[in-house]
């Protein structure tokens, strides 16, 4: 089972307009898909007789402020333990309505991963049983991993210009 076979199979199943951006990064197959395909795609890969992508390694968000209409992304890492093949699936959503269907019904592990992506990037996972902040305090009013927010603690006073002779 090679990466090419997987890519071909997915394209023939879902069509070229749904599975695109097929690249191989350091031996790891990357595909991009659309929001409405992600759930059927993961289910398909889960029950595929030979592929058997039944392990969700990781899920995380990403932010590209310059990609208009596709600012926020979700990256799924799948692993077929039987074949020892990994697969990365990406999808992008606009920042105004970052709504992505949840996959917690398929993978229990996705619960906190999706909450983390919500906490960090504000991606809304539709159908998630308990979508609230996980790592940050509940009263935080922004999503800190978005590129426009600063990393530093705003209350620190020992980093003012005067102390550096500026």
């Amino acid at each position: 089972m090679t990466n090419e076979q997987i890519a071909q199979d997915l394209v023939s199943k879902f069509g070229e307009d749904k599975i695109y951006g097929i690249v191989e990064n350091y031996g790891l197959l990357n595909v991009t898909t659309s929001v409405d395909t992600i759930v059927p795609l993961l289910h398909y890969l889960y029950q595929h007789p030979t592929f058997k992508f039944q392990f969700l390694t990781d899920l995380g968000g990403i932010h590209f402020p310059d990609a208009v209409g596709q600012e926020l992304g979700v990256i799924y890492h799948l692993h077929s333990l039987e074949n020892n093949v990994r697969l990365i699936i990406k999808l992008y959503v606009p920042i105004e309505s970052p709504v992505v269907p949840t996959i917690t019904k398929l993978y229990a592990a996705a619960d906190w991963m999706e909450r983390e992506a919500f906490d960090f990037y504000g991606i809304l996972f539709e159908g998630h049983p308990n979508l609230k902040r996980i790592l940050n305090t509940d009263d935080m009013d922004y999503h800190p991993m978005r590129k426009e927010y600063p990393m530093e603690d705003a209350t620190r006073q020992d980093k003012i210009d005067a102390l550096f002779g500026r």
Partner: protein
Amino acid sequence: MSDRTIKTVEAPQGLEGQGFFAAKLDDLVGLARANSLWPLPFATSCCGIEFMATMASHYDLARFGAERISFSARQADVLMVMGTIAKKMAPVVKQVYLQMAEPRWVMAVGACASSGGVFDTYSVLQGIDRIIPVDVYVPGCPPRPEQILDGFMQIQELAKTEQRRRRESPEYKALLNSYGIE
């Protein structure tokens, strides 16, 4: 073990005569306190692991009269904050401090507890002295167990020399007030 030597602490300055010994009450109380401090380890992350080493057989914190690790704040004398304190955690630290009975000392172990350390980020409290008064800072990331022991000895020194009325003094009240503690 026959070659065991028992160490006793030195007696404070005082007047000794036949059958009596007179010294200042402050000194005696200080002496007793300093050698029976009960630490409350508030270990959150990496520095807590070094505390584990300090506590365990090799470094053995118990030699300094801290045999009993008090996990209950009510019976503890020294709050040892070890590790990063995130903003989410800050109210908990304060609560624990408030639950402790006077006299209480606070030791900030490690760069994170002292100043935020390498984590100058939106989620980390930049030093616990923003919420509670701190007596001894131990630098290091993490400090070696020897350093933690040294910090502990500094606390002992503070306890030994503390005026008995310090905790009732207006200065102390003002200090607590500046942290919003009544």
